[in-house]
């Protein structure tokens, strides 16, 4: 801890770095957040950002269209590296989603007030990340129009999915995760949609928000059940989010490929998911609060706390790397030992070192109070961690597959233009959805901010 930092979590530090700026009332938080959607003119910056993102999304559409015409041969995958970018990107995106659920569900159960202003867009981020993630395994099947084969439906052939396969577990885990995240997000939105309905002036907006809010009127009897349902959803989403990346890690851990077949995968995948997810929340939150002047709602306290979570999960990930390394050597299994040598000295060694640099070494700056309170540093750090976590999945997928048991089965992998186009295209889709989201829905939960105003005014008494 550096000098000049007040004692940990004292009343002093809470006053210095509040979760909400001073002087807000129920009316003023409502005005400020709903104005972003209802009255503020759409800025030129929004249009520029949206256009860039939308063009990239167009690139994705072209890449997927070409894939459907030509087949997966346009990618760099081959035998033995059948997984390539598609699975690397799938795991990366789904991991990013996890922070949204962590913030909205686990921090809710732990009664952390600082979650309030970031949970809404973190949940939106989850949904959009899951949407991006879902694309990859779908198109990786080669014949995406046959993907319904993975769902248990009564087919004329009397055939059922292989429920013993981690790939089927994945289908259930990811689709459940997507559904529950959507429900959680929508339930949270209902009171805010009612606010937008009551405050919008134009008739079409009133009708659309009115239909979406389903006639919510803030009745105490409704709130009573609403709170039960919300708490239950939080309680359900918590084990769910842990299960999803566990199941994703099973895709690897159940296989016997060297470097994959380890019991440390589930916890270290979950930690890595939360790590990259918090990095992505920071990547979005920092420009968002700047662009819409939300510094009073997304305060330095939020950024500081997120940086701390990143540091903590980053250390768990580092522990995972260390034990992965140690157990490979300690096992004495020659294939595992060889894999470690390949990571350190093989053709993809630079990726491994870049991974260690991005995920383990760089985040150590976050021990410093000054660094955690420097917005520019946090933004750069969040991008570095995002890159690092992508490299981690690349290292896991590619190094293991290029160097398995028999030298005659060794291979090389390099992505093609279409691999990159699809990957960058999904980033475009993600950013496009984020841009649309902040324009048409409240990016911060208004109802929960009012609750926070009520609670903080009680604290002051």
């Amino acid at each position, binding site marked *: 801890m550096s000098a000049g930092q007040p004692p940990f979590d004292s009343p002093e530090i809470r006053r210095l770095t509040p979760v909400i700026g001073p002087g807000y009332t*129920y*009316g003023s938080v*409502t*005005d400020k957040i709903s104005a972003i959607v209802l009255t503020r003119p759409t800025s030129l910056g929004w249009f520029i950002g949206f256009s860039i993102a939308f063009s990239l999304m167009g690139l994705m559409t072209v890449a997927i269209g070409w894939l459907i015409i030509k087949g997966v041969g346009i990618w760099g995958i081959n035998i033995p590296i059948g997984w390539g970018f598609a699975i690397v990107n799938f795991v990366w995106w789904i991991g990013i989603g996890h922070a949204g659920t962590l913030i909205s569900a686990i921090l809710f159960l732990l009664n952390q007030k600082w979650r309030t202003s970031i949970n809404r867009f973190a949940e939106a981020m989850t949904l959009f990340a899951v949407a991006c993630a879902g694309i990859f395994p779908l198109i990786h099947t080669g014949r995406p129009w046959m993907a319904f084969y993975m769902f*248990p439906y009564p087919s004329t052939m*009397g*055939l*059922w*999915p292989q*429920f*013993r396969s981690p790939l*089927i*577990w994945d289908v*259930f*885990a990811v689709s*459940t995760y997507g*559904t*529950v995240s959507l*429900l*959680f997000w*929508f*339930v949270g939105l209902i*009171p805010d949609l*009612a*606010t937008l*309905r*009551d*405050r919008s002036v134009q008739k079409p907006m009133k009708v659309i928000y*009115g*239909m979406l809010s*389903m*006639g*919510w*009127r*803030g*009745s*105490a*009897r*409704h*709130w*009573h*059940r*609403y*709170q*039960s*349902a919300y708490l*239950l*959803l939080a309680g*359900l*989403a918590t*084990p*769910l989010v842990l*299960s999803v990346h566990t*199941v994703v890690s*099973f895709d690897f851990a159940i296989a016997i490929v060297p470097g994959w077949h380890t019991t440390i995968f589930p916890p270290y995948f979950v930690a890595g998911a939360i790590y990259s997810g918090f990095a992505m929340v920071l990547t979005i939150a920092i420009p968002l609060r700047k662009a819409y002047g939300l510094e009073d709602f997304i305060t330095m306290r939020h950024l500081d706390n997120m940086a701390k979570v990143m540091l903590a999960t980053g250390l768990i990930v580092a522990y995972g790397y260390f034990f992965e390394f140690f157990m490979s050597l300690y096992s004495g299994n020659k294939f595992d030992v060889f894999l470690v040598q390949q990571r350190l000295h093989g053709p993809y060694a630079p990726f491994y070192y870049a991974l260690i640099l991005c995920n383990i070494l760089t985040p150590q700056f976050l021990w410093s109070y000054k660094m955690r309170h420097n917005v520019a540093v946090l933004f750069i750090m969040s991008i570095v961690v995002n890159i690092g976590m992508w490299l981690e999945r690349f290292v896991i997928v590619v190094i293991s597959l290029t160097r398995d048991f028999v030298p005659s089965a060794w291979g090389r992998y390099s992505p093609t233009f279409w691999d990159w186009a699809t990957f960058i295209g999904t980033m475009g889709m993600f950013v496009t959805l984020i841009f649309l989201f902040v324009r048409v829905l409240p990016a911060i939960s208004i*109802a*929960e901010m*009012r*609750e926070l105003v*009520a609670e903080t005014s009680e604290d002051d008494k």
Partner: protein
Amino acid sequence: MLHRSHIYGVMGEFETPEQLIHAVEKVREAGYRRLDAYAPFPVEGLSEALGLKRNMVPIICLLGGLAGGVGGFFFQYWASAITYPIDIGGRPLNSWPAFIPVTFELTVLGAALSAVFGMLALNKLPQPHHPVFNVHRFTHASSDRFFVCIEARDPQFHLADTARFLQSLHAHHVSEVSDD
């Protein structure tokens, strides 16, 4: 009592959650039972003041979760061991540990869907129109004001008296709620 059939109730507006809870307590002390409170966020202590009991959402959620889990497990068992058994090197057909991930996911899915749709059904939502929306100032119920509505169904309801009673609780505004 003249226009009783056209009146849904009488509504009082309050500025703070404390005033709302105080008003609800007084209204209930005065013997009114058909009433509801409206707030822009869940107010702590309001359910107790209104005398709301435990609700049905948790039990619906539990049943949904059980249905998802039990149904999910036995579906996998049926598909893998009964209707499409594949013998791979004599391994057991009912390989139950391998069915657990999907069972877990379906438990969560069933519980979450039933919690949300159960909550909406018990709240009788979606309900696009409700008499309280006829009150012009009710748009503030979704931003910064708190309302109590004593409904005309209440046996003790009397338009003028009830309105006066709400006034005596320092309601900011008191308005009739028409039924159409």
